[in-house]
């Protein structure tokens, strides 16, 4: 029976994930948002599905990817965006804007209460004030802003984004857009004739000209405000345009772009609650896109699927479970629990890998391009190395490390995603796949190894001090693993750091510029070198190695996040003031562990019976390990 337990656990969890992945049923007479959500649009320099625009915008404004209404109903990001695009009167009443800062609330004369979310309608009397206050805060560097200033600036940016979204397809409040656009098309020739006559000084039809001029003014405003570039080029080389832009172009071509017309009809049908009409035009457009822009549609359909599957949240949940199983395996029933943890980890790693490679496919880039993806990759690398260790030693330690690091890095990634699109375009100097694939991958692999070594050391200390489970054999293998992983970290950190120098030499003409991020990387290399030399020289023994590996966590977290918080240098691409207390807390926790580890060995529950001499190794022995 016991033999089957791991398989049963695996099947149950896989079934649960499969259940999460079932596509939601759409009622026949409801609007077909699945098809609509796959429409390709250009935002932030990248062609993406409307669904991604919806999720990222809602994340920026609301802090979440879905919207819970006051009546308890939940709207998906796409449902919300459809309202914003086509029926803003409804969207304006929905409580989307997140405000937690009491000073910002005070600005409007509101007291802090249970409510955190507010609707656009509630802000409408204060728009000018918000803009002024936001502009003032915008003048400061991110580091200098107070909590109030950051909050008001966020609110201003959120409102600007919201208003641009509302005016992406049509000017907000337009009721019969299709008729208007068709009328525009019909009156262009007459107006052109009138304009030519006017130029020649002949008699002309003033009414025809002014009717079109009025619409042109409207579309100029639309083109100015639009956030989404929804209209693809008709040929291969052209550029994407906003609806407003495209309509202005129509003045010279005399024709309305088919996509503009379809969007207009979709919008009108949506407002009229004509679901059949909505679905009919969504179908027509989807066919048009599939025919004219097949590569874009392939990508956006895949991205739509990727958004729905949420691979990182799924694997995060499995990592936690596997970590708990692995820890439990040290208390008893070890083989079974251990195997269950291992199988679950393979499942989690498979999903994690799927997510990582999907991002690479969507972005056509090596895995790490920003802070968010570094977290994903660090977790991935550490999990793979841990699982190899687990295969070799089969004692649950590798599995526990994999679960813990996989979970924590994905949590970090989740919190780094708040600023919008995590597949953003790269700044000019970063636009080189060779260096992203070598330097960045090496450095982040080095981080993975450092955290893994630190985690192994934490297991050594916690099990040694607080439990009796750290037997000689376990202690031996932990020491070997930690030492090996530190070697691995040294190699990758060193090569990665020097490759970074070479990249800098290629782009800026200096190998080393003492930029904070460079310094952070070299700190890791130095710390590894110190650890290894101290070990080889016999200055530290097993316990010293563990303490130094835990300190390595502090060095690595400083290099990964700490230097970005300084706000200086060329690498400070991800400033996050909010993360500072977390970083500090992490560092303090590691120092606490080091302090605990420095207690005399008699106080370690696992060692209280044994003496220190076993912990001592001669330098020669150490070198041979």
């Amino acid at each position, binding site marked *: 029976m016991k033999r089957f337990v791991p398989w049963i656990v695996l099947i149950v969890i896989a079934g649960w994930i499969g259940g999460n992945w079932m596509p939601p049923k759409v009622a026949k007479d409801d609007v077909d948002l699945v098809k609509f959500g796959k429409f390709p649009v*250009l*935002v*932030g*320099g*990248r062609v993406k599905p409307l669904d991604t625009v919806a999720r990222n915008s809602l994340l920026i404004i609301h802090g979440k990817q879905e919207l819970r209404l006051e009546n308890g109903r939940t709207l998906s990001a796409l449902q919300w965006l459809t309202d914003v695009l086509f029926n803003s009167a409804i969207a304006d009443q929905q409580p989307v804007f997140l405000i937690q800062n009491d000073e910002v609330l005070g600005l409007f004369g509101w007291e802090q209460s249970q409510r955190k979310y507010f609707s656009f309608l509630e802000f409408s009397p204060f728009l000018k004030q918000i803009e002024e206050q936001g502009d003032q805060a915008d003048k400061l560097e991110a580091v200098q802003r107070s909590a109030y200033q950051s909050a008001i600036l966020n609110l201003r940016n959120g409102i600007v984004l919201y208003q641009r979204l509302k005016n992406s397809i049509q000017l907000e409040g337009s009721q019969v857009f299709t008729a208007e656009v068709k009328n525009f098309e019909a009156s262009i020739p007459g107006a052109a004739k009138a304009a030519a006559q006017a130029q020649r000084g002949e008699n002309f039809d003033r009414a025809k000209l002014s009717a079109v001029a009025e619409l042109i003014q409207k579309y100029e405003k639309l083109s100015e405000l639009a956030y989404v*570039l929804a209209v693809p080029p008709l040929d291969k080389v052209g*550029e*994407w345009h906003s609806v407003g832009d495209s309509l202005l172009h129509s003045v010279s071509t005399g024709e309305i772009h088919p996509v503009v017309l379809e969007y207009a009809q979709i919008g009108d049908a949506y407002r009229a609650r004509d679901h059949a009409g909505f679905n009919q035009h969504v179908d027509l457009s989807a066919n048009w896109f599939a025919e004219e822009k097949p590569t874009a549609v392939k990508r956006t359909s895949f991205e739509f699927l990727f958004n729905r599957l949420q691979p990182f949240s799924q694997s995060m949940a499995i990592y936690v479970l596997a970590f708990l199983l692995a820890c439990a395996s040290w208390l008893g029933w070890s083989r079974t629990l251990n195997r269950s943890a291992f199988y679950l980890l393979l499942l989690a790693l498979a999903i994690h890998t799927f997510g990582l490679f999907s991002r690479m496919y969507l972005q056509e880039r090596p895995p790490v391009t920003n802070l968010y993806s570094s977290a994903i990759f660090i977790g991935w690398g550490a999990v793979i190395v841990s699982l190899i260790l687990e295969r*070799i030693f089969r004692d649950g330690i590798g599995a526990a490390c994999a679960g813990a690091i996989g979970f924590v890095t994905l949590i970090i990634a989740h919190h780094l995603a708040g600023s919008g699109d995590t597949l*953003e*375009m790269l*700044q*000019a*100097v970063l*636009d*080189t796949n060779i*260096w992203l694939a070598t330097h960045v991958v090496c450095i982040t692999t080095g981080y993975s190894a450092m955290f893994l070594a630190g985690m192994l050391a934490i297991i050594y200390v916690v099990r040694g001090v607080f439990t009796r489970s750290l037997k000689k054999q376990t202690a031996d293998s932990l020491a*070997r693993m930690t030492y*090996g992983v530190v*070697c*691995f970290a*040294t*190699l990758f950190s*060193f*090569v990665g750091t*020097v*490759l970074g*120098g*070479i*990249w800098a*030499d*290629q*782009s*800026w*003409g*200096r*190998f*080393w*510029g*003492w*930029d*904070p991020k460079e*310094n*952070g990387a070299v*700190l890791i290399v*130095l*710390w590894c*070198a*110190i650890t290894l*030399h101290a070990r*080889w*020289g016999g*200055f530290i023994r097993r316990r010293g190695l563990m303490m130094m590996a835990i300190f390595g966590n502090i060095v690595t977290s400083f290099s990964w996040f700490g*230097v970005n918080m*300084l*706000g*200086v*240098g060329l690498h400070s691409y991800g400033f996050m003031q909010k993360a500072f207390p977390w970083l500090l807390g992490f560092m303090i926790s590691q120092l606490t562990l080091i302090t605990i580890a420095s207690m005399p060995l008699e106080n370690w529950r696992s060692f209280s019976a044994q003496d220190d001499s076993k912990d001592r190794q001669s330098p020669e022995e150490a070198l*041979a*390990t």
Partner: protein
Amino acid sequence: MLRKIVDLFTSLKLTIICLAAAMALIFAGTLAQVHLGIHEAQQRYFQSWLVYWPAEGRGFRIPIFPGGHLIGAVLLINLIAAHAKRFHWAWRKLGIHLTHAGLIIMLAGGLFTDLFAIESHMRLQGGDTKNYSEDQRHMELAVIDTTDNDLDQVTAIPESVLKKNRTIDHWSLPFRIVVRNFYQNSRLKMLSQVEPAAHAIANQGPGAMIAVEPVARVTAQDERDVPAAAIEILPKDDGGSLGTWLVSDALGAPQTFSCAGRTWMIAMRTARYYKPYSVTLQKFTHERYAGTEIPKNFASKVTLTDPERSVNRDVLIYMNHPLRYRGETFYQAGFEQDDRATILQVVHNPSFVAPYVACVIVAAGLLVQFGIHLVGFARKRSAAAV
């Protein structure tokens, strides 16, 4: 005694102490960048023999920590000495030897770069041709004899000399220059616009109407100091004075005066490095991703002209693709004036190859070393399993 010194310099303890000191220094130097800016922090912490407290302006200063050069030098000596003393060939130690040989190359290369590399900038507007680059960090006082129509004779006095506030007596000039006031960073204001208490520090040229206000040195990476000085011209043939001029980068045109029958022009300007060839900007392009302000690419199309080597060709300099020519490398560093001007960084670094070589050697060394460990470990395990 000698033995003790040898022991000290070859000891592993010294290595560890140096590495630990380097970590502390880099950590402190990185945090210091927040207040000092990268350049100043680099000078004080990394490109120095000792780190002092307080930094300046208190009349006294005491060294509190070894600087980057000192730590690097001791580490280099320690590395070489330890290997010279203990070196004995064994395949088993190949990895260690390679790693450390690579590190020696890297440290030595770093020191060499610090000493001999020169970084400067070339700013070009569309159509501009220049045969010199400018040092953004250092100024010079250019004294130019413009009497001849075809040939200007330039005498350049570096900022470091001006700073010392003393008399400059150069054989090529028929006058002595006395530096009366020197401001590392300053703001110039018209006298009529400041409080009546202010007074001019010069009595000749536009400087007679200008008040100079000293300001704190800048720390941001994209800003720079505006030094100013008042200089008095004393002709060598008689004991009199021609007057005092205000010189500063912030003053537009150079100022002229005559002395010993010749016409002279003086100007404080960024220090220049002249080259035997010239560069002409044809076009600068700044691409952005559609619908965003995110830069996609910066590129400068320039013409390189070198009559000495009969070179006249067009070159495209863009991100990650510099131009390397006659020991100097031109990188696309930035732009100005709404994309109408380009800024090229010009670097002369004779030891730029060192890190490339060192990286390969050290990586190979580490791979071999850890590979040996890994193979040994695997053998042991398979032996234990049997």
